[in-house]
């Protein structure tokens, strides 16, 4: 297997090289492009580490949506004179500290115990009771359901934080940061052809998550990307942030999750416990609502804070 080892070494070197480029590139745009390529290669590393679920999330969120946000910011930030870099003393101290941390972590990696601790057998053993075939989905939605519940709330909290950056007079309006005044014909074609396929892929990822890599987060991310494409070209309008419908969609996933979790006190004997025999349909219902809420939350996060009610070119 020396060919595989050499390939992995090349991959690791390439990733480190791109990380260095991201740190030293002269323009912000160049740095972000390097970071996107980095994200793509990290997704390949996740495949090599046998974590395809993580690779899907990294490709869709880490490289796709994050790249969109950062590239959009890099293209729009004013190019002012570079601020003064910190003095030699601080840079030397930071270098020593960072090198020490990296060396410590490297030592930990090299000295890991031979018999690695793992919860994989326990996670796999109880899957049939849930009616699932993908242990990662089982962990996300059943064993560690509290994490996933809180995580879906974190997205809503981030959105509230983003919306509170709006000026007072703009509150309640539609997010307007994405609308292109004059989209190119090629882009309009993309926004007309891609979303039908993308919606199919998003729903497929949510559905297949029960038995194979995929799930609510990956599916929701793809759906959000498709929505954002239509927002950029003006094919759809972003909803008013004060509207009741959009807020209902935002909380539908976490609320259903919480309601079923609380019902678990009576039906399953504990918070977030599923009654025996009904685990699979309940999990599917939660996943479906979560996919929708995650898609809406991610799309609105990309759309930015609301602008004035009238809007510049509404």
């Amino acid at each position, binding site marked *: 297997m020396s*060919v595989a080892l050499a390939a992995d070494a090349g991959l690791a070197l390439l990733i480190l090289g791109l990380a260095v*480029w991201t740190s030293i590139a002269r323009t912000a745009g160049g740095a972000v492009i390097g970071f996107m390529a980095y994200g793509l290669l990290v997704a390949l590393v996740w495949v090599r580490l046998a974590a395809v679920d993580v690779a899907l999330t990294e490709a869709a969120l880490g490289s796709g949506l994050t790249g969109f946000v950062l590239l959009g910011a890099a293209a729009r930030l004013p190019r002012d004179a570079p601020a003064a870099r910190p003095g030699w003393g601080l840079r030397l101290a930071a270098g020593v500290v960072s090198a020490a941390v990296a060396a410590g972590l490297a030592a930990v990696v090299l000295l890991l115990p031979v018999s690695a601790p793992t919860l994989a057998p326990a996670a796999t053993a109880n899957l049939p009771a849930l009616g699932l075939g993908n242990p990662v989905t089982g962990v996300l939605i059943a064993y560690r359901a509290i994490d996933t519940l809180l995580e879906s709330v974190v997205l809503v909290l981030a959105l509230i934080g983003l919306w509170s950056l709006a*000026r007072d007079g703009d509150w309640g309006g539609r997010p307007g940061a994405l*609308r*292109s005044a004059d989209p190119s014909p090629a882009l309009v074609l993309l926004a007309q052809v891609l979303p039908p396929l993308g919606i199919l892929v998003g729903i497929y990822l949510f559905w297949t998550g029960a038995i194979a890599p995929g799930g609510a987060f990956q599916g929701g991310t793809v759906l959000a990307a498709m929505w954002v494409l239509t927002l950029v070209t003006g094919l759809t309008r972003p909803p008013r942030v004060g509207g009741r419908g959009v807020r209902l969609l935002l909380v539908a996933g976490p609320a259903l999750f919480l309601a079923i979790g609380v019902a678990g006190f009576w039906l399953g004997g504990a918070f977030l416990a599923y009654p025996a025999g009904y685990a699979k349909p309940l999990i599917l219902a939660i996943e479906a609502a979560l996919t929708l809420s995650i898609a809406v939350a991610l799309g609105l996060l990309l759309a930015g804070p609301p602008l004035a009610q009238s809007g510049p070119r509404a």
Partner: protein
Amino acid sequence: MSEFLLIAALCVLGTVALGLVVILRGPTEADRLSAAQLLGTGGVAALLLLGVATDTTGVADLALVLALLAAFAAVAFITPFGTNGGRADPVAQPDRPQDPE
């Protein structure tokens, strides 16, 4: 057969990665973005080959997602969108309605 596919995946990835490393120096952002785009296509091809060679579930789906979102991030960089036509963010607008003065 699977060894051949693995080596082909390696060749594709190595080739596009080499192009990326050279082209990241520029001269323009368009060059850098096209090199990143080529890395994306090469990554998709390598994943398809890897998925068939090792028969891993989900790798083809990963390639599908990467191909679906290949153009997505680039759209943010080259489309003039937003209220100010995609140019730099406006600085401290004087005509803010809630300002008392």
